[in-house]
């Protein structure tokens, strides 16, 4: 009887042969978006001309536009990935 129980339990477990769930890979963020934000550049000690100030402003505004691109890039990346992965279900 004990052997019968063991065999029966053994056969029961045959139906519990669960398959592993399909696990998606975590999507990779573009390398550009992982770069740290650059600091703005202050005027140098010997830069007292108005042209230096404008030139420096030009460089700093450029930093802003680069960061704006990255910020919007993050938003685009996140929304795009969300749309792809939510479409699975």
């Amino acid at each position, binding site marked *: 009887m004990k052997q019968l129980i063991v065999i029966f339990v053994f056969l029961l477990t045959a139906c519990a042969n669960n398959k592993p769930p399909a696990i998606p890979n975590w999507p990779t963020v*573009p390398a550009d978006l992982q770069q740290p934000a650059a600091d703005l550049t202050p005027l140098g000690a010997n830069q007292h*001309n108005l*042209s230096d100030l404008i030139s420096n402003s030009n460089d700093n505004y*450029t930093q802003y536009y680069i960061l704006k691109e990255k910020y919007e*890039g993050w938003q685009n990346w996140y929304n795009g990935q969300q749309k792809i992965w939510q479409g699975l279900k």
Partner: protein
Amino acid sequence: MLDIIIKYAVGGFPIWMWPACAGGSAVIYFLFHVLSSLPQIRPYAFLIKPVSAIVFMISIFMYGGAGVDAIYKAAFKEQQQQLELAQQASTDATKQLTDALAANEHLVKGRNYGVSQIIIKDTTKINADCNRINNDAWEDYNRAVKNTGSKQLPAAGAKQ
């Protein structure tokens, strides 16, 4: 150990084996009288009915399990295919964005270069009216650049 047995022994059985076993055990069960009349089997005749009944039930059970397993496998395969498609779409979208980011950054830097060239060209005109900016203006500008709130002390947490 049990997993290995299940995977390589029970899991490896063909599905047709279970209805075959069920049918065979049912036949043995109903031919009990014929089989028990055979002299070689007669000593074990008392086992025929219970064993064949148990084998019948187990076979049906295992056949059901194999069916469920097949359904799971099909669902898993379909899900795997969808995942592969989604991963490909994800990789493509990331690559597309990487290219767009690089192109836009290049464009921004190009415009910066263009403006800097204009500033260089106009340097004399720009400095004509203001050859040297006030020291306070210089300090205030740098304070703004560094996001420093006070003249004496930098704002809490601000970088110097």
